[in-house]
């Protein structure tokens, strides 16, 4: 493979993973927390207008991101340019960033809805946001590793 193409493929692995992670967290949020547990509410009266816009945008974007990222993944595979470590790093980074945005700005600042309608919601907030930060850190570690020590598969494709 033309090695000149590699930097762009490397970026695309990260991009595809990032978008997929973002979409996956959005999807889990919708199915698990809205539909299955009924913790999140469809609409909270204290939602600010900007919260409504932000929610609508991220909802639409996460659908597009999930599906688009999977087609990007398939595209990288057929080009033999998939870098699994980097891709998973992207997934964790994208998922973590969206979860942190959801847990801090959307839930708290824009008051879209709370994680669960109970007294000690702060405990849920802490678990939620700490998980998000852990995902971001794990994602960064994987991404840096994939640059320093390309995995066997990565190396094979980059040679």
């Amino acid at each position, binding site marked *: 493979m033309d090695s000149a193409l590699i930097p762009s493929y490397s970026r695309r692995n990260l991009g595809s993973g990032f978008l997929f992670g973002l979409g996956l967290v959005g999807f889990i949020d919708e199915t698990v927390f809205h539909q299955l547990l009924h913790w999140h509410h469809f609409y909270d009266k204290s939602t600010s207008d900007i919260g409504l816009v932000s929610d609508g945008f991220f909802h*639409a974007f996460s*659908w597009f991101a999930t599906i688009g990222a999977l087609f990007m993944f398939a*595209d990288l595979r*057929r080009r033999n340019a998939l870098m699994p470590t980097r891709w998973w790093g992207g997934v964790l980074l994208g998922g973590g960033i969206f979860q942190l945005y959801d847990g801090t700005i959307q839930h708290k600042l824009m008051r879209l809805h709370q994680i669960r309608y109970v007294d000690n919601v702060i405990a849920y907030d802490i678990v939620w946001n700490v998980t998000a930060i852990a995902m971001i850190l794990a994602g960064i570690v994987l991404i840096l590793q994939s640059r320093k020590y390309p995995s066997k598969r990565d190396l*094979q494709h980059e040679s």
Partner: protein
Amino acid sequence: MNHNHMDTVGFSYDFIWILLCALLIALYFMAARISNRQYRSWPLSRYFFWTFGVASAAAAVGGPLANLALTDFKAHMAGHLLLGMLAPLLLALAAPMTLLLRTLSLRSSRRLSRLLKSRPLRILSDPVTATLLNIGGLYILYTTDLFLRMHESLTLHIFIHIHVFLAGYLFTISIIYIDPSSHRTSYRYRAVVCILALAAHGILAKYIYSHPPAGVPLIQAETGAKLMYYGGDLIEIVFITIFCFQWYKATRPRKSVQMNKVTIDAESP
């Protein structure tokens, strides 16, 4: 609300719609049969897309669902999803313009394609214009007293339904290219506009949830809004998948890269 005009003309109104839909399906089948003599056989799937597309539009404008929609907002919203989203998608997949172009005589089809390439149609079929007509129309319908007035005037009722369908169709073909399009825009541009349009659709659904249109009881607005939000999602997933699949097909690696790959595979131990 006053629905008297519907009760008195109910029978003939439904009858006209059914006749019109049967005619549309018959015309499509005839055109396919006629053009099959000259060109390669028209794909079977497209007959299904066309028939179900016409049927889902028909269900929204006549018959039991449409009658229920006059008093029940949830039924109205189900009709809106059928007429404004599902029917346009199915009909677009049936590639009616391709069929028309290959059925018409050479001279008429040239004239038609010249018309399709004209400047006004290029502006109209731009994703941004199509989104404004489609989603903008919905905002006007549900956030002003137009929704109330629609139930008082048959003319307005018909006009709004035609607009919802045409704008939905225009939006669909401005993002997904099934028929040959002479004004193609980039995947990135269409993806951005599409996300914004779908976001605006979701935002409007949640707005309706808390601000019912004039004359709609709060509880009906809530169930109707949820149907708009999640029903919309369902069709959007299909819509986005088709769009991405088209990108996937269009960006397939060129032959030389493929051959390169083969040599690398052969060299690697």
